[in-house]
């Protein structure tokens, strides 16, 4: 055969297969932090979502169509997030995006509403829960604000000392760190708990001794740390060195299995809020994760953030299925599909998920864990009230 005809048939074959392939996939954008300041939790999350989607694709995907995750590592740099978003929407034509950080999600919130692109963020910022302000934002788990309220409820219930309990908030000065603080301030006032100190720590964390010493001056009984696990570990180790007696509470990006590994003895007796099950916990949905990892990544060390990513994958893949069944596999269709999900069971990996057209808080339940003997140990489940005036806070 002449060379030109071989090339021509090859090109035709490629064209056919590519269009054929293209017709069979649902494109979803995946924006991850794999190498930036929150990569300590960004990587397991990305792994969780990717594995969940691979597992769902194996079982038939979205009614026969495969989900194609287009992955971009933006290293928590907002300009890269913007550029990736433009690429997702204009060039890849994705149906929805699974994003990551508070900073970029809040920065993009008006644009995604305008473009009608459902945006799942690994950020649980309370500012993303009000559909009148952020109609296309979703996340899976109790918001940071509800977590800090859960912490304050716990303090109120367990405080046996004289007078009001004294608490402090420790957080870095960016979107993620500041997200629950205003809610925490208001609720502490409501409960009569004394917020004695707010300590702003640098991000990325370097030496925090002076910050801890500043907090120590006010002698809080409890302190809530709103940052990811690696800086939390640093803080706890330094606190232990300084002999600080405050009881520490972490948010859901601090209380992970990596904490005792990084902070070692300093993690003992530290509490934290968890929005998802610990890896390997005895819930019905865990079997799928364990089987997948036994087959594909037997040596990988997974944690609760991995479970989180997996739960996300399950939730929005389900929405894609619903939208597809209604023949509305578009951004707006997926949003409507999400808002029909009521008490959607995620197999115990996270409390049941409910979205409505007026409330994007999937749940207000979270679980308090404590590190005992180097392991995440369940203490109790908490549920904060689903108050209307707390939407968007």
């Amino acid at each position: 055969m002449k060379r030109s005809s071989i090339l021509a048939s090859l090109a035709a074959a490629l064209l056919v297969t590519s269009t054929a392939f293209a017709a069979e996939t649902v494109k979803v954008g995946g924006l991850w932090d794999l190498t930036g300041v929150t990569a300590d939790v960004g990587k397991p999350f990305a792994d969780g979502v990717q594995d969940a989607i691979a597992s769902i694709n194996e079982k038939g995907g979205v009614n026969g169509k495969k989900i194609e995750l287009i992955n971009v590592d933006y290293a928590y740099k907002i300009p890269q997030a913007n550029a990736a978003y433009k690429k997702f929407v204009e060039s890849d034509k994705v149906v929805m995006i699974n994003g990551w950080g508070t900073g970029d999600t809040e920065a993009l919130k008006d644009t995604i509403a305008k473009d009608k692109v459902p945006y799942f963020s690994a950020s649980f910022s309370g500012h993303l829960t009000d559909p009148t302000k952020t109609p296309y934002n979703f996340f899976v788990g109790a918001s940071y604000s509800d977590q800090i309220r859960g912490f304050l409820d716990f303090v109120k219930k367990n405080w046996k000392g004289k007078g009001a309990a004294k608490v402090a908030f420790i957080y870095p000065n960016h979107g993620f760190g500041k997200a629950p603080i205003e809610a925490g301030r208001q609720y502490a006032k409501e409960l009569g708990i004394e917020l004695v100190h707010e300590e702003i720590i640098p991000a990325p964390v370097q030496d925090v001794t002076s910050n801890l010493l500043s907090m120590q001056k006010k002698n809080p009984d409890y302190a809530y740390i709103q940052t990811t696990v690696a800086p939390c570990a640093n803080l706890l180790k330094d606190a232990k060195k300084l002999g600080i007696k405050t009881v520490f509470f972490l948010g859901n990006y601090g209380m992970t299995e990596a904490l005792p590994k990084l902070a070692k003895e300093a993690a003992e007796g530290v509490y934290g809020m968890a929005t998802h099950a610990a890896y390997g916990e005895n819930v019905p949905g865990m079997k799928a994760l364990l089987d997948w990892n036994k087959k594909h990544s037997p040596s990988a060390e997974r944690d609760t953030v991995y479970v989180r990513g997996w739960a996300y994958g399950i939730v929005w893949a389900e929405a894609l299925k619903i939208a597809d069944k209604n023949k509305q596999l578009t951004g707006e269709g997926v949003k409507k599909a999400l808002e029909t999900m009521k008490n959607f069971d995620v197999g115990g990996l996270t409390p049941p998920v409910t979205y409505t057209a007026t409330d994007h808080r999937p749940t207000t339940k979270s679980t308090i864990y404590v590190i005992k003997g180097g392991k995440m140990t369940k203490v109790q489940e908490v549920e904060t009230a689903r108050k209307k005036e707390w939407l968007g806070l």
Partner: protein
Amino acid sequence: MDVTFILQLIINGLVVGSIYALVATGFVIIYKASSALNLAQGEFLMVGAYFCLNLLSKHQIPFWQAILITFAFSAILGILIERLILRPLIGSHLISVIMVTLGLSSILKALVQLFYGTDTIPFPEVFPSAPVLIGPVPVSQGYLYAIGCVTILVALLTSFFKYSKTGVAMRATASSQQVALSMGISVKKMFAISWAISAIVSSVGGILLGTIRGGIDMSLSFMGLKVLPVVILGGLDSILGAIVGGVIIGVLENLSGGFVDPLVGGGAKEVAPYIALILILMFKPYGLFGKKKIERV
């Protein structure tokens, strides 16, 4: 005034400052001997820490042997960089030298990231972690060991430069290269030795930081930026200045963190050394101990 609070801040500042002093000393040694500005000093610290950690955790080599091997590696790295990158640039524009070391710092950072990733890697416990009481103030033992190490190292370096033949030769080269050459001193060898010593000194700093923090990650390279206010304060060509400057900047940082941060809501600690740098440049541009170069245009 809470005395314990201030004392704790000062002690912490001393510890952090002694690490700054180490890195600054490395910087000054290179500047004195070869008039090169090594902006990759922070990366030397990081590479030293990661290399040592690799030996300790992956290959299970006992601590003292690991340190010596790390020293050898750092020395070789320093000599290689001097030979391949800085030697050809002798006599070129200042900005070329600054940029080449900035490029070098990017390369080193990237190499570390490629091999070890960006996660925090825990450093095995070398010093016992129980705090010791100095007066009313609990101080971590690792801190005390760090200050001790730095003091010993500085004493070693000072006696090296003052009494050993090579040390005196290096000072001669720093003073005037041409005269040193005509006296029979191999200036090329002096350059190489100065880079080797500087790299070793930085890796000591890295290892100490690793043991204090209990873990190392990419943020170690930020030390390189921190060292600049230190050398400006102390004087670019004075080792004593580097040490004094390091301690002053470390204490200043912590005191700002303790007293100014609550007033401005955070962030003052990071910016304080740079405000200090600007003030020093305005009033004493050659630093506390640097040599004055009169040049008015």
